[in-house]
């Protein structure tokens, strides 16, 4: 028979099954990744002013755009315990490459994307690395607010929402609706029950929590500081957050995010090839 180029290769079904079982067991082996996180250095709460490139306080309801260059770190601080912010992340030099929430959770075998994990682009590359995360809850499953989710949560009225914030910000960057994608939402505790029911975990939002995201390529980001669509309470009262772009120093050979899992290591092979 002539070749079509669509052949799936030589492994037998049994070999494919065995290989997947091995990957899954390794990817979800309890305690292994957690031990690496526990052994990793912790970022200081304070950052030397010499190391800061840019700093901004983003009022509740508002958005902010910035470029975080490869190697720089974006710290987001939640001083007043606002219930979630949302991030859009594009590759600065080709906006068609962007954060992919589905790949990020699927490839890393977990929806709990926290310290030691990487944010993957749709091109199989590590875009940003979570080098610190004191809160531990960031949502990749339920997303960001819209006029409709605001109305459902808070009743009628013009309240700022993330979808509109992103549209405005995108327009100013020469981007549009097609460039918006599923957000990465720090400070948001969305958990699933045994039946797939989603709920908001209130104690996941902690005053003073911060997350460090190290850019692995030049990233164009937009942060929207509106409450997560699943946040409970019924009162729209987003509090300000702080964003700091800073130099966290050189990346060590045993860097947690680069070496935490086999999957992350392969994502970095793709990223490093891109810059080689």
């Amino acid at each position, binding site marked *: 028979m002539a070749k079509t180029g669509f052949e799936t290769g030589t492994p037998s079904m049994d070999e494919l099954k065995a290989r997947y079982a091995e990957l899954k067991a390794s990817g979800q082996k309890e305690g292994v990744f957690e031990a690496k996180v526990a052994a990793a250095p912790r970022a200081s709460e304070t950052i030397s002013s010499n190391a800061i490139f840019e700093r901004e306080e983003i009022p509740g309801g508002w958005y902010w755009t910035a470029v975080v260059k490869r190697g720089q770190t974006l710290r987001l601080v939640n001083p007043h315990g606002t219930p979630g912010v949302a991030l859009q992340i594009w590759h600065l030099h080709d*906006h068609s490459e962007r954060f*992919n929430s589905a790949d990020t959770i699927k*490839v890393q075998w977990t929806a709990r994307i926290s310290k030691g994990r990487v944010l993957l682009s749709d091109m199989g590359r590590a875009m940003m690395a979570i080098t610190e995360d004191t809160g531990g809850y960031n949502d990749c*499953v339920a997303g960001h607010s819209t006029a409709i989710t605001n109305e459902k949560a808070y009743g009628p009225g013009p309240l700022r929402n993330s979808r509109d914030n992103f549209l405005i910000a995108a327009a100013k960057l020469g981007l549009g609706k097609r460039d918006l994608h599923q957000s990465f939402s720090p400070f948001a505790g969305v*958990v699933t029950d045994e039946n797939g*029911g*989603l709920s908001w975990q209130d104690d996941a939002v902690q005053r003073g929590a911060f997350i460090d995201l190290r850019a692995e390529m030049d990233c164009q980001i937009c942060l929207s500081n509106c409450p997560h669509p699943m946040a409970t309470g019924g009162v729209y009262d987003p509090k300000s957050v702080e964003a700091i772009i800073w130099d966290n120093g050189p990346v060590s050979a045993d860097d947690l995010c680069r070496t935490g899992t086999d999957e992350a290591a392969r994502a970095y092979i793709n990223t490093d090839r891109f810059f080689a």
Partner: protein
Amino acid sequence: MTTLSTLKTEQAVEHHHVPANAPFSVTVKKGQTLRIVDTEGQQAVDTLFYNADDVEERYSAHDTVTAQGAAYITTGSPVISSEGNLMLTVTADTVGYHDTSAGACSVESNTVRFGHHTRFMHACRENFVLEGGKYGLSKKDIVPNINFFMNVPIEPNGDLAIVDGLSEPGNYVELKAEMDVICLISNCPQVNNPCNGFNPTPIEVFIWD
């Protein structure tokens, strides 16, 4: 929740056979019902929807799961667009469970998930880009999709994995269109995980007025 349909295939206005591994698309008019049949069982059908009058309005997995407060798609699930509008409603489902959090496979993500030896194997995003091109869609229009017949439980501790499919031969899902939509399908070619029982198979698509 599993529910049966009362529609009869001999009364369908359209019937399409989609070979294993192949892309497919069809326009479903407001009020029409779309049925996707997993002919041989355990076959993931990666599916995206676009507003036929404005393709910048497209399926949003995040808005869909937020609207229903649940992670999986089944009977009664609203299929919500990026604008927050209702695109379709799931009206029948003989499996009871479909993923919308794990997205579509790509040759790039395959290298990260399974190793670089899988780089040159056909994948869903290749299908989406090719088929979407017929409507002027490009990579920017490809977003996380619904995976009909794909089983990806998200555990309370966050653990998430593609596990053996629950669908048996002939199982189907039906959706009623609430606006004119383009339905873009990749009949998933993945053989590195159980989403297709390690053996991609054909599907059938029916449409009723």
